[in-house]
């Protein structure tokens, strides 16, 4: 399953940035656990795991991201 930046995470169309991954590539994560922190306009937001499974990180920290973008996969 894709891990996506939710459309309602922030209001306008600007870019955020991945601040930190809280788990590493290949680790097992449980549904609902915060996976990453994303900074937008100096505010930090958590991205929860949409499902349980093994994490594949697609976007490295300090990379700009947009709403709707796929940042990781859970298999």
């Amino acid at each position, binding site marked *: 399953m894709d891990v996506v930046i939710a459309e309602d995470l922030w209001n306008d169309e600007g870019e955020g940035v991945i*601040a930190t*991954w*809280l788990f590493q590539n290949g680790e097992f994560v449980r549904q609902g656990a915060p996976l990453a922190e994303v*900074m937008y306009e*100096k505010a*930090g937001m958590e991205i929860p795991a949409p499902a349980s499974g093994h994490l594949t990180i697609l976007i490295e920290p300090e990379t700009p991201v947009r709403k709707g973008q796929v940042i990781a996969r859970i298999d």
Partner: protein
Amino acid sequence: MSATPRRLTIAKAMSEALGIAMEQDPTVLVLGEDIGALGGVFGTTQGLLERFGAERVRDTPISETAFIGAAVGLAAAGMRPVVELMFVDFFGVCMDAIYNLAAKQSYFSGGRVSCPMVLMTSVGGGYGDGGQHSQCLYSTFAHLPGLKVVLPSNAYDAKGLLLSAIADSNPVIFMFHKALQGMGWLGTVPGSIVHVPVETYTVPIGQAAIAKSGTDITLAGLGVTVHHALQAAVTLLQEGIDAEVLDLRTIAPLDRKALAASVGRTRRLIVIDDDYRSCGVSAEVIASACEGGVDWLAVPARITYPDVPVPYSPVLEHPLLPTAAAIVDTARRMFHRKAA
């Protein structure tokens, strides 16, 4: 069934500890620059303004002398202020309130007036922020009687140490390392992000921790250098050297007992300290170990930042910082091994 890990950054763990302390004790309040709506430049006070209001979560003007002085007064009057002073580099203008007032309050009053304040501040360089935003100054504070100084290397210790610091009746300097904070733009070391229980717990001030046990050599570090040491230990193990990594956690009072126990077993010591070299924590650790009477198998060594101001250019700064590679090289020499 194993519990679900709950990973937090040090920034989140500190915010959580502050929230717990403020909920439990109405005399706890937080002040500093940009700690309100922004939640702290280093994310240490996230969500507190919304939960506790502007009376207890106070943004201050850029006047360190004024708000540190105010905090010392608040503490004398029975409050438990937690103050953030963004960068340790900025303490110069308010040192009188810290080392002449706060640190001596209990002593001068015969124990009748205490000073239960916590000063939170960021330390460390490596991200090109120049000589007035990149210092550590661990020993500058650890040198002064009456001050306790702590520096967590991971989020679990950050929460537990901050709760201990707030509960302490005397001033505690709570340092947090920028490279471990979890703010992204500073490049976070993944090892600092660990499972943090939701519940309240404390990590005692004055206790070091063994981050990795080993038998052949002690690598003593603090903050980010603990992670360099852990990385070096992996390489050394491949070469047959089983290193023990000691996380000092508290700089003052130093856990000399844990240090003596570790070097008593390994009889070899490297101290890794990203503060300036001369008269630093590294010197104090080596002197303390020697005073314990160790029958050394190799002369103790230290890997530190050199005695020069921190350059702005990364090209100049990066080669000066302690690294895992430097630890491995130094250890190999102690074992008379050639470079791989």
